[in-house]
């Protein structure tokens, strides 16, 4: 084949440009730390990258939801424990009052304390978390009980707040007021007297009458309420437990998925730099050889 000067120059140019393209590819990889800059560089990596990014973003959301659920349930759990403490104190006082050695003054003192406990109980029923009443079901802007212990709102069992903590995995975070303060009932109408507060009322009435037998009769009711509170508390505990497990799993998932994401789209820096150096050497060699080849012709020797 006849080789002409233009052929040499054209070939050299196209070789240099190919070589420079590869240099630029690895340079981009090193600078961006990403394997690809356009989907067409590798459509499979690109579509996997999109999928994994979504997965990671979702796990992050679920982690935040779990954190929020944990805070909500923590305040619920603490409040229910306080409620239980109040009930235990009321029980102690009641047992004390029922043992038949109390003077009317003692009875009056006990009654006064029970009244305080009732007020405290109503306050606990109206506990808020960042401005929201935690036992009011969906009506989080409204208090649950009035000062007498009547339900201010209609509350029902299906007013459960579900937080999403995984794909298709919901957890209910709230305890509905009727469950805790009305003996585990499914729903309660507005204006109904809370059974738990009713027990306090009965106790106060019995203390007022000074009838020790009547006071003693209330103990059974108090025990029923305590039993109910403990049932709710253990349910909350079980859910908190589940949240903790989910939280751990999400932490693991997060690590795994970010690892996968990195493996999919991040470049191995050492490898990229090596490729770059290699291509740069090729480019330099091509330049040097090219410069030598296209220069000399007969013209240089004809003088």
């Amino acid at each position, binding site marked *: 084949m006849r080789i002409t000067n233009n052929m040499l120059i054209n070939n050299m140019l196209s070789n240099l440009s190919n070589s420079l393209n590869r240099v630029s590819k690895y340079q981009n990889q090193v600078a961006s730390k990403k394997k690809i800059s356009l989907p067409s560089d590798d459509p499979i990596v690109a579509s996997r990258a999109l999928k994994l*990014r979504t997965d990671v973003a979702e796990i992050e959301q679920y982690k935040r939801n779990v954190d929020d659920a944990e805070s909500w349930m923590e305040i619920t759990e603490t409040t229910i424990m306080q409620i239980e403490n109040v009930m235990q104190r009321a029980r102690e006082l009641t047992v004390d009052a029922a043992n038949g050695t109390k003077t009317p003054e003692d009875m009056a003192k006990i009654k006064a304390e029970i009244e305080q406990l009732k007020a405290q109980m109503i306050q606990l029923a109206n506990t808020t978390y960042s401005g929201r009443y935690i036992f009011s079901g969906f009506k989080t802007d409204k208090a649950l009980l009035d000062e007498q212990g009547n339900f201010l709102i209609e509350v029902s069992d299906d007013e459960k707040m579900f937080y999403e903590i995984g794909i298709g995995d919901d957890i209910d975070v709230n305890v509905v007021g009727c469950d805790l303060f009305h003996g585990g009932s499914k729903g309660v109408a507005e204006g109904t007297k809370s059974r738990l507060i009713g027990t306090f009322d009965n106790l106060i009435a019995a203390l007022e009458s000074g009838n020790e037998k009547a006071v003693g009769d209330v103990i059974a009711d108090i025990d029923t309420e305590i039993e109910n509170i403990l049932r709710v508390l253990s349910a909350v505990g079980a859910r908190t437990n589940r949240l903790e497990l989910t939280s751990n799993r999400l932490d693991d998932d997060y690590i795994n998925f970010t690892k996968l994401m990195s493996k999919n789209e991040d470049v191995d820096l050492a490898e990229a730099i090596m490729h770059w150096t290699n291509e740069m050497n090729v480019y330099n060699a091509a330049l040097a050889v090219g410069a030598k080849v296209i220069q000399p012709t007969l013209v240089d020797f004809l003088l």
Partner: protein
Amino acid sequence: MSGSSFFGIDIATRGLYSAQRGLATVNHNIGNITTPGFSRQVLEQRAARPILMANGTGMLGTGSEVIGVKRVRDEYLDVKYRTEAQYLGEWDVKQALLEELQVIYNEPSESGFNTVLNEFYDSLQRLSTDPSNPSTRAALKEKAVMLTKYFNSVAAHFEYMQNDINEIIYAKVQEINSLADQIAKLNQQIYSYEVSGNVANDLRDQRGYLVDKLARLINIEAYEVSYGKLPNGQDDMRFVITISGKALVDHNKVSYLTTIQRENKLNEEDIPDLYEVAWADGNRLVVKSGELKGYLDVRDGNEGLNGSSGFRGIPYYMRKLNEFVRTFALTFNEGLIDINGDGVVEDVMGHVDGYKLNSKEGDSAAGIRFFTMFDENGKPMSSEDFAKLGGGDIEEMYRHITAKNFSISSEIYEDPTNNICISSAPGEVGNFEVLRSLIDMRHNPYMFREGSPEDYIKTVISCVGVDGQLAMHYLNNQTAITQQIDNRRESVSGVSVNEEMSNLVRYQHAYKAAAKMIQTYDEILDVLVNRLGV
């Protein structure tokens, strides 16, 4: 005659002339080393007609003569080059434009669709953990605006791009006409030269170069046809260029191409008044390859819909975006979605089924659509005005939404605190049952034919990625093929400096030697005339 005193000087003079023409040819070649399309020329030289000696001693040579200057060219390679250049032009354009399309989608990145959609759902989740909080509601509104703006911006960029390509198509048609014009003029000139038996080497090179350029633009066939015999007995050759069988250049006549603004859009997604390319005489033009085909395919290609090419161009990607926002808005607003993949659309809770935050016991569902579109003034449309567009037909209503005009409704825009309706019952600020239904939809694999919202966009991005990769491969192949043919052509027709230098030396010596011959005869004659003097 054979004894003529000056016969030798005549032969030597012919030698001088031949060497001179040779040097001139070398000079011409060297001067045109960098002229695009130039073919090297060689001297056609032969021994001059000899003289028959009357005394029976045979023929006496009379030196050399130049019979012409020939251009070295392989016509077969020209045809081959032009066939391949058409596809090189087409894929060069497609590759560059597909890269531009991918940049518009901006994926994978930290600011593309994926991020925007993730953040939108993230804000829905945040709202679920604090449903009555005005700031989480305001945040959701902002994220929704971001989502709609993403689509508006991508659609606007597609439109700019379609418009730009349309202008380029106009320019390319003008370029084709102008090249055809120049070729027709050259044809006339070449014909006039050659009719008298000459060869118009350099004009032919110029024409060849223009035809090469034309071949990149559109599918052409270029050939010389015989129109019969000239009076001098030679073939009457005329040069013709055809596009899909119809002559663009017929010797010195040109049939022009023209651009006509379309009255009816080819695709619903197109911008108005795109140019249709046709023959100026009204005939239909079939563009099969070349840059023009590349531009037309990217501008019009809608997977073969509406008679467009099977290529996936701007209308295809616009349609995909529109389909997305329509289905997404319909599902999100109305809660119409196929839950279990049985092909039947179920009516679950959508945003219209929700109650306002400040609703009171006894209020009915607010019926507010979260997503609507911009009205003709560019303002978000209210849910009610939007509903009127359909005239009772929900599908029809959503057909008005495009990626370009996709927006949140004016209600949400003006008062997100109250008008984001996520409660399934009136007067319950902590109720987010509707929101749960909306969040659930994200993982519904039947929301789109392609799956969930992410799957849908992933499919589109993979599609543009694969097409881009394919275009890159085609371009690389085509570049290699074209370059190889061009190299072969260069190998035949290119100027080699070494070769020219050798010829230079060769002709220089021939000239010197011929001059020496004259000097020798001069000396002989000097002896004869001056020294033998009486």
